[in-house]
């Protein structure tokens, strides 16, 4: 379990980090918490010649809520997200999901930026970000740009970010007061990736649903945003029949692969259960 040799860099500013990536090209990789990259390097599935550590860059750690957005710096650790009372009050879905990722030691290192940038379909944050309609800010040698989480994922480990771009900030539209939320994840044990997981965010007025967003984790090459399933709920009273129809519509877009967590049919069945539970819990929480 010894990784290949690399040269280590710890820049203090974002511009230095971007310059290092531009200079070393393909041979450089950023490391945030290292909880996904280090295992890959130990297995030599990744062997970057230059590792650019983001830990000293203060501007990547800032977080708070500004003008209708919850803004979270890329190197905010999963553990910090869980203990941040103000973010948890504004957007409780973040804490609910973060608590279901890995274990305490991994969450003490693993960052939200690393989790969404990694591109592993097993990661929980990407589906969550699609549910929340988050936007990712990227910085590269040619400047900055923003990409919606719903457009970011192209295939397993392939995202729309270029090799020399750093994900700097995650912007989440603050969900309306009284919204309902839930993240339901089936896993074999604590610290395991999802067999299937579902994120739900919805709002209702006078008992009638006026918006609903549903996304899923580890049921395809990328996280899946179930747009049609969400639309089915709008205008309903979130009754059992409506929730079941939405869950069915969401399952219809899944493309799970058979692996150690089970065959395709099993994963679809688990997905439906996770979706229904998440929908029920979110509907019950909405005011």
């Amino acid at each position, binding site marked *: 379990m010894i990784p290949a040799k690399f040269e280590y860099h710890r820049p203090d500013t974002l511009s230095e980090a971007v310059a290092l990536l531009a200079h070393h090209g393909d041979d450089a990789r950023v490391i945030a918490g290292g909880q996904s990259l280090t295992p890959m390097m130990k297995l030599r599935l990744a062997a970057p010649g230059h590792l650019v550590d983001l830990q000293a860059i203060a501007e990547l750690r800032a977080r708070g809520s500004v003008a209708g957005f919850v803004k979270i710096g890329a190197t905010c650790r999963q553990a910090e997200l869980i203990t941040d009372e103000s973010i948890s009050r504004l957007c409780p879905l973040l804490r609910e999901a973060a608590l279901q990722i890995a*274990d305490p030691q991994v969450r003490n*290192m693993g960052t939200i930026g690393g989790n969404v940038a990694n591109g592993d379909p097993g990661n929980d944050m990407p589906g969550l970000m699609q549910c929340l309609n988050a936007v990712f800010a990227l910085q590269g040698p040619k400047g900055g740009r923003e990409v919606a989480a719903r457009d970011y994922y192209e295939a397993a480990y392939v995202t729309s970010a270029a090799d020399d771009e750093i994900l700097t900030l995650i912007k989440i539209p603050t969900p309306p007061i009284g919204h309902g939320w839930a993240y339901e994840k089936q896993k074999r044990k604590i*610290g395991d990736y999802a067999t299937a997981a579902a994120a739900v965010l919805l709002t209702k007025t006078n008992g009638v649903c006026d918006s609903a967003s549903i996304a899923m984790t580890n049921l395809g090459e990328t996280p899946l945003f179930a747009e049609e399933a969400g639309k089915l709920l709008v205008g309903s009273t979130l009754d059992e029949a409506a929730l079941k129809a939405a869950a069915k519509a969401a399952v219809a877009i899944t493309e799970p692969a058979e692996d150690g967590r089970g065959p395709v049919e099993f994963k679809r069945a688990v997905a439906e259960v996770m979706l229904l539970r998440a929908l029920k819990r979110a509907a019950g929480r909405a005011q």
Partner: protein
Amino acid sequence: MAKAHVKMTVNGREIEALAEPRTLLIHFLREQLELTGPHIGCETGHCGACTVDLDGRSVKSCNMFVAQADGANVTTIEGIQGEGGGMHVLQEMFREHHGLQCGYCTPGMITRAYRLLQETPDPTEEEVRFGLAGNLCRCTGYQNIVKAVLAAAAQMNASKEAAE
């Protein structure tokens, strides 16, 4: 590729050493500093036997390069002891409640529990189980580990109250 200069505080002592950046922190601690308390169980980030305290957080030292820990304050099981220099209450309670059998997971368990009781000084049984979920034990079935941590919390809180 040249070795890099690393500096850190380990168990209260300032250390300086030369190490390849790719060296895993656990290998650096065990082989270069001869701190063999933290164990290697899986070397893949799953078992928690290699848990150390880094700047006040529990981390798995097999899933981290020594270069990332440059400048950090590290505590290993060797640095955890009672006020007078004897056993820490956690260590005493692990002994009293039979919180170990082969002992392989114990350094990681205690190092994690030590931090857990600072994060959550009066945990429920469920909080102890959730807080120790990154540490695997093949022997005990966890019951006695949980008992030991709860007993240590009770003792530590009682002596805190007595001191006030």
